[in-house]
C-alpha cells in the first residue's frame, strides 16, 4: 500500500516533469511557429487587394509562380548560391571544428572564443568591411597589384555572386563550426584507435570513421547555414549585385515595394517546400550512406 503511494507520487512527478519540459516548447511552437506558418500559408492562397489579409481564395499565385520561368530561375540561383555557401562554409569550418575537438587541448576555449568574437560586431558592419576588402581600391586589389598578380584593379570582386558566397561563408562560420565541434567531441577516442589499429592512415580514419560519425553535426551545420541563406536578401542586396538576386529578395519585395503580400506568401511557401524537399533528400541520402543520424 505504502509502496503504491510512493510510486503514484513518482508517477505524478514524472507527469509534472514532462509537462514542465513540454511547456516552453509547446508554447513557442504552437503559438509562435504555428501562427507564423498558418499566416503565410493562409496568405498564399488569398488574392491581393492591398489589404492586410487579401481577399477570396485562389491558387492564382502558385499558377503565376509555376508558369513564369523567372521564379524557377531565381529559386535555382538561390539554391546554387546557398549550396555553394553551405559547401564553402562547412568545408572550411570542418577542419577548425576538428582541431577544436581533437587537437586544441588547453587552447580549446580560447580558440572557441576567437572564432565567435568577430560576430559580436554588427553584420552590416562586417559586410561593409568586406566591401572594403573587395572594392576597386580595396585590400584584395591592392595585394594583387603589389604582388604583381594583376596590373590594374579589378571591379569584378564586388557585386558578384562570388562576393556573396565569400561574405556568407564568413558570416556563418560559427554556425558551422559549433555543431560540427559538438558532434566530433562525442566520438569515442577508441573508434579512432581501432581504425588506426586496423591500418587506417589518419586521412582514411577521418574519411571512414570520423566523418561518418560526425555526419549528424555536419548535417546540422549544413541545415543551419543552407536554409537561412536560401532566403537571405540583405547580403545579395548589399554585396552581390543584380546577378545575385535571390528568392529572398523577391519575397521581401512583394511584402514591401510591390505590396502584394499574398504573392509574397505564395513565393515563401514555395521556397519552404523546395528547401524542405532538399533537406529531406539530403537526409535520406545520408541514411542510405549508413549514417546514424
Amino acid at each position, binding site marked *: 500500500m505504502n509502496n503504491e503511494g510512493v510510486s503514484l507520487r513518482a508517477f505524478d512527478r514524472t507527469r509534472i516533469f514532462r509537462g514542465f519540459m513540454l511547456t516552453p516548447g509547446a508554447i513557442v511552437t504552437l503559438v509562435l511557429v504555428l501562427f507564423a506558418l498558418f499566416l503565410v500559408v493562409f496568405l498564399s492562397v488569398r488574392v491581393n487587394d492591398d489589404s492586410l489579409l487579401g481577399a477570396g481564395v485562389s491558387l492564382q499565385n502558385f499558377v503565376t509562380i509555376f508558369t513564369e520561368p523567372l521564379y524557377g530561375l531565381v529559386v535555382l540561383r538561390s539554391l546554387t548560391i546557398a549550396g555553394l555557401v553551405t559547401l564553402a562554409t562547412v568545408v572550411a569550418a570542418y577542419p577548425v571544428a576538428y582541431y577544436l575537438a581533437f587537437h586544441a587541448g588547453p587552447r580549446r576555449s580560447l580558440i572557441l572564443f576567437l572564432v565567435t568574437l568577430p560576430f559580436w560586431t554588427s553584420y552590416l558592419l562586417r559586410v561593409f568591411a568586406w566591401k572594403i576588402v573587395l572594392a576597386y581600391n580595396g585590400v584584395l586589389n591592392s595585394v594583387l597589384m603589389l604582388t604583381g598578380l594583376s596590373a590594374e584593379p579589378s571591379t569584378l570582386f564586388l557585386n558578384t555572386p562570388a562576393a556573396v558566397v565569400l561574405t556568407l561563408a564568413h558570416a556563418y562560420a560559427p554556425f558551422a563550426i559549433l555543431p560540427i565541434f559538438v558532434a566530433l567531441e562525442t566520438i*569515442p577516442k*577508441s*573508434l579512432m*584507435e*581501432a*581504425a*588506426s*589499429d*586496423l*591500418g*587506417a*592512415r*589518419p586521412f*582514411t*580514419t577521418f574519411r*571512414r*570513421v570520423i566523418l*561518418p*560519425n560526425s*555526419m549528424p553535426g555536419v548535417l546540422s551545420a549544413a541545415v543551419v547555414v543552407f536554409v537561412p541563406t536560401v532566403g537571405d536578401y540583405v547580403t545579395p542586396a548589399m554585396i552581390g549585385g543584380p546577378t545575385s538576386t535571390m528568392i529572398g529578395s523577391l519575397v521581401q519585395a512583394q511584402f514591401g515595394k510591390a505590396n502584394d503580400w499574398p504573392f509574397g506568401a505564395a513565393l515563401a511557401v514555395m521556397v519552404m517546400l523546395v528547401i524542405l524537399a532538399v533537406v529531406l533528400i539530403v537526409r535520406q541520402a545520408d541514411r542510405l550512406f*549508413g*549514417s*546514424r543520424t
Partner: protein
Amino acid sequence: MATDALLRLDSVSKHFSGGIVGLNNINLSIAEGEFLSLLGPSGCGKTTTLRVIAGFEAPTEGEIRLDGKDITPLRAFDRPVNTVFQDYALFPHMSVAENVGFGLSLRKIAASERRKRVAAALDMVGLADKINQRVQALSGGQRQRVALARAIICEPRVLLLDEPLSALDAHLREQMQVELKRLQRELGTTFVMVTHDQTEALSISDRIVVMNKAAIEQIASPSVLYDRPATAFVAGFIGTSNLLKVRLVSRDASVLRFAAGTLSLDVPSNGNTDLQPGDGATLGVRPEDILVSYERAEGSVGASVESVVFHGRSLRVHLLTEDKDSLTADIPRQAEPAAMATGEHIFVSLRPGASCPILPS
C-alpha cells in the same frame, strides 16, 4: 639484443598524468609465432602494455622493437599489429560485415575476396547469421566476437587481444580458444593476449607474463609457472594456492618434510633447495592437494569447516586449522566425506606426492 625476438619491450615505462604509474620498467621479448598471455590483477597494467605495443600510448621511457627495428615512433597504423579491444570499439555506423571488412578494405582487397573472408571470419566466431545486422543490436558476447573477427581478418604479424573472450560462456570460450590456437598455428601469427582467466592462460599460452602493480612478476611457460612460481604473488595468483608458513623438519634424497604446526607436509624435493632442517619457508599448497577426513591420521591437523561452495565437480571448502591457518581445499564430490557442512570438524593432510612450490620466505 636477442635476435630471435620478434617483439621486444626494452625498459618501457608509462606514467600517466597525476603521477599514476601505468607501467614500470617492463622488459619483454616475444618470439615469432609465440602465444603470450598477460595475466594479472585488475589495474596492473595489462591493457596499458597492449596499448603501448599497438601504438596508442607513447611510452614515457624505453623503446619497442619489432624485428629488431625500433618502432616506438611509429604510429599505430604503421605497425603490423592488430588489436581486439577490451571495450570492443566497434564502429557504430557500420554493419557487422562492414566492421569486420574494414581492415581488408584498406588493403585494397577485391570486394569478392573480401566478402569471402568476412563470411569466413564471421563463421569462425559463430556469427554468420548476424552479418548484416547493426552492431547496436548485438548482445555483449556477439559484439566481442565481432571485434575478434575484425582484428583477426587482417592477419597481422602480432595480434593483441585484450580479454577477447571475457563475455563468452565456458563452452563458446573453449571453442574460441581452440579456434584462436588453430589460427595462430596456421598463420604463424604472434599472439599477445590479456586474460583474467588463469585456466585460459595456462591452456592456450606458450608463455605467460604475470604482472603486478605495473611491473612483471614472472615470465614462464604455463607448467613452469604452475609448478615453480617465482614469487608468492604468482603462486597465489595462478593456483589459488594456500600460502603456508612452514619449517623444514627433515630431508632425505627425494622428500622434504615440512611442518606447519601439527600439520606435516612431505614434498618431493626435485633436487630443489638448499634448505636445512629448522629453516623457515613458504609453501604453496593447492586446494586440490589438500585431503580431508573424519579421522585423525599421522601428520594431519584438525580443522573446522568455515564454508562449503559447490563448484560442480568438486566442493571448495574453506577451513580454519587448529593452528589458525586458513586453508582452501577442493574436495572431489565423489570423495568422502561427501556432504561436508559448515561447522563440521575434520582432519586435514597433504596429498602424498603433491608437488608444492617452495617460495622464498
